[in-house]
């Protein structure tokens, strides 16, 4: 019996081996290397020079780090709730789509397939303050739209608006979760005279809270690392200074520019570890909150 179990364990490890080797070689290894690099001055052209914790000290006093971190947290605080709400709305509509559900699922998901660079180029046109389609739409309702892409105040809201383009991926997950909420709970709620809003609040939301929690964590981590769209729109291939001031300077953009424009690999590594800590802290807070607000099937409530 023991022998068979050990044999199975070995087989298990053997199957895991490619992943373990890959993880050690391509994730853990580079992470440790970057941790060491963060204590050096390294421009990729000369050998690294050990400088202790100087890079971390500099990061703590670097105005641009503070600006980039603020921009990133601000974007995340707007993006994640907006993504959840829009995706939930889309999923609710999809649920009612009846026979055409398959078609609409595909339509809702299709934008997710757009390459980020193409998305950025397209939204530069759509969001243009002078003759963009979004302001034209607002104009029909009597609003004068802002300069989304050139006014520092409106750049981050504009990027949040653009990020909703990919809400389809989250909506599909919510749709799957919605279909798993037992119909008898709604029936019971209706018999008790619950309004649609109360049904949503007391049946639907607890029923899909696990999925909402998952998407909130994943979207938070992704938005704390936002890069491609903002870099393409506001910094571009020439590596120029963004013409909109620092409004679109997100943390990873600052990190990337320190690494590949200023050739400060050591400092950029320290910034990367800083972001790792920020993400870990934010995720820890989310885990803590989840104990209170997230319900799983089979759990006592």
């Amino acid at each position, binding site marked *: 019996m023991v022998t068979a179990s050990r044999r199975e364990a070995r087989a298990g490890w053997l199957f895991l081996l*490619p992943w373990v*080797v890959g993880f050690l070689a391509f994730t853990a290894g580079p992470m440790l290397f970057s941790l060491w690099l963060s204590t050096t001055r390294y421009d990729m052209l000369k050998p690294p020079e050990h400088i202790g914790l100087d890079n971390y000290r500099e990061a703590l006093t670097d105005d641009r780090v503070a600006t980039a971190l603020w921009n990133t947290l601000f974007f995340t605080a707007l993006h994640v709730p907006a993504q959840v709400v829009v995706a939930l709305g889309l999923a609710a509509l999809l649920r009612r789509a009846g026979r055409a559900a398959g078609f609409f699922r595909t339509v809702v998901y299709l934008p997710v397939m757009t390459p980020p660079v193409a998305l950025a180029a397209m939204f530069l046109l759509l969001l*243009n303050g002078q003759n963009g389609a979004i302001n034209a739409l607002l104009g029909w309702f009597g609003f004068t739209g802002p300069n989304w892409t050139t006014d520092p105040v409106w750049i981050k809201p504009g990027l949040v608006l653009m990020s909703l383009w990919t809400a389809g991926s989250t909506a599909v997950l919510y749709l799957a979760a919605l279909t798993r909420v037992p119909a008898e709970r709604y029936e019971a709620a209706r018999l008790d005279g619950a309004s649609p809003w109360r049904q949503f609040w007391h049946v639907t939301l607890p029923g899909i809270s696990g999925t909402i929690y998952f998407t909130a964590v994943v979207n938070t981590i992704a938005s704390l690392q936002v890069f491609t769209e903002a870099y393409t729109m506001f910094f571009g291939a020439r590596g120029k*200074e963004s*013409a909109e*001031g620092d409004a679109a300077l997100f943390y990873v953009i600052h990190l990337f520019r320190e690494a590949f424009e200023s050739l400060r690999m050591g400092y950029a590594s320290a910034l990367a570890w800083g972001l790792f800590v920020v993400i870990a802290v934010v995720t820890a807070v989310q885990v803590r909150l989840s104990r209170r607000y997230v319900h799983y099937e089979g759990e006592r409530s």
Partner: protein
Amino acid sequence: MRVLVVVAVVLLVVTGCGGLGAEPAANALVTMGFGQPDEHATARVAVFRAANPDVDVRINEGAFDEQQFLSAVAAGDPPDLVYAERRKLGSYAARGAVLSLADCVREHHVDLGQFRAAALRQVTHRGEVHGLPDFSVVRLLIVNNPVVRAAGLDPAALSTTDWTALAEATDRLAVLDGNRPRRIGFDPKVPEYLPLWAKANGVDLVRGDEVHLDDPAVVEAVRFTTDLVRRQGGWASFKAFRDTFDQFGADNAYVTGRLAAMPMDSWYLNTLAANSPDVDVTVAPFTDRAGTPITESSGQAWAIPKGARHPDLACRFLTTMTNADTWVLAATARRDALARAGKPYGGTFTANRVADERIFREVFAPGGNRVLARAVPQVLALQDKAFVVEPSPAASELVRAWEGGVNRVLTGRQPPDEAMAQAQREAERALDRVGGR
């Protein structure tokens, strides 16, 4: 047996990755950052291939990618040749990432005197040339004649000499709907053209190993240019309006009348000539405040990265590509290709003076295009009046510092003196960090 399987799996994973970067053949010459969009590239590469049939030239198509290049250099696997902006290569030379071409130039009897001085200055580090300049771009004024005349002004009189007069002309030429521009009167092109405005006001932003971003004359140039933008609706509206221009189309801002005048890179004249040959523009030099024509030079250069496998072959390649005879052949091929498409040939502006002289004497075929007829003499006359921002190991950070400073003024976050003082501090920190002084 199990141990064998484990070893095999590990080897497969590890060697699978190692197999991606195969060792190039002994006669292979790999380039980075150079594409072949037209005859200027293909004809010159063909000249090298014809003279060196045993060399396997591998053109790694695509624009220069700094990340890709530096990673390759750091990994000890650089290309044999790199083609990039001279400003960038000057910075790499100062950091030791590209080789000195002193021996190469000597062995191939290259006459460096043939190259435009400003272009050569950008790739010279400690007296040694580290790259051979390729194309040459200068900056000049392009004025929209009908728009300026309609405002009761003389297009020939519009200049950057008298800043007070320029501000007044801008007010007359600009059309605003509230704070939304309907026509830009004069686009100063800041922050990109700050070096030109600063030079016009008597200051080089970088001199030797010193930066002068907080010089009162620079602050005055920043104040003047950002004020021009403020008068035309403010930065957010001004830029949003400018972003709507179809710069490369037949309905560009000169044709639609949405722009009266701006300084611009000389390559744009060929774009205008090709896409809107009937557009009525005046092409004039950018002048300093004493009325003397000045211009900033830019363009690309060829260099050999540190650690290149075939530096001798690379040297042969870059001397061939920038040679006057090769340029004339390429220009001829370009002219003939355009003629087959029924288009005029506006000449090729290279950093090789001898090549330019021959091209504009023997090959140039403007075909009656009036944009070219007005523009080409101006561009040629300006080539040897050009200045460059001196090369620095912290070039990218210096540009970032002064562009950031101007942007803070444009977006109303700081007054000019405060913004440029901060830019000066950032630039000095960057220079200290890279040991640039």
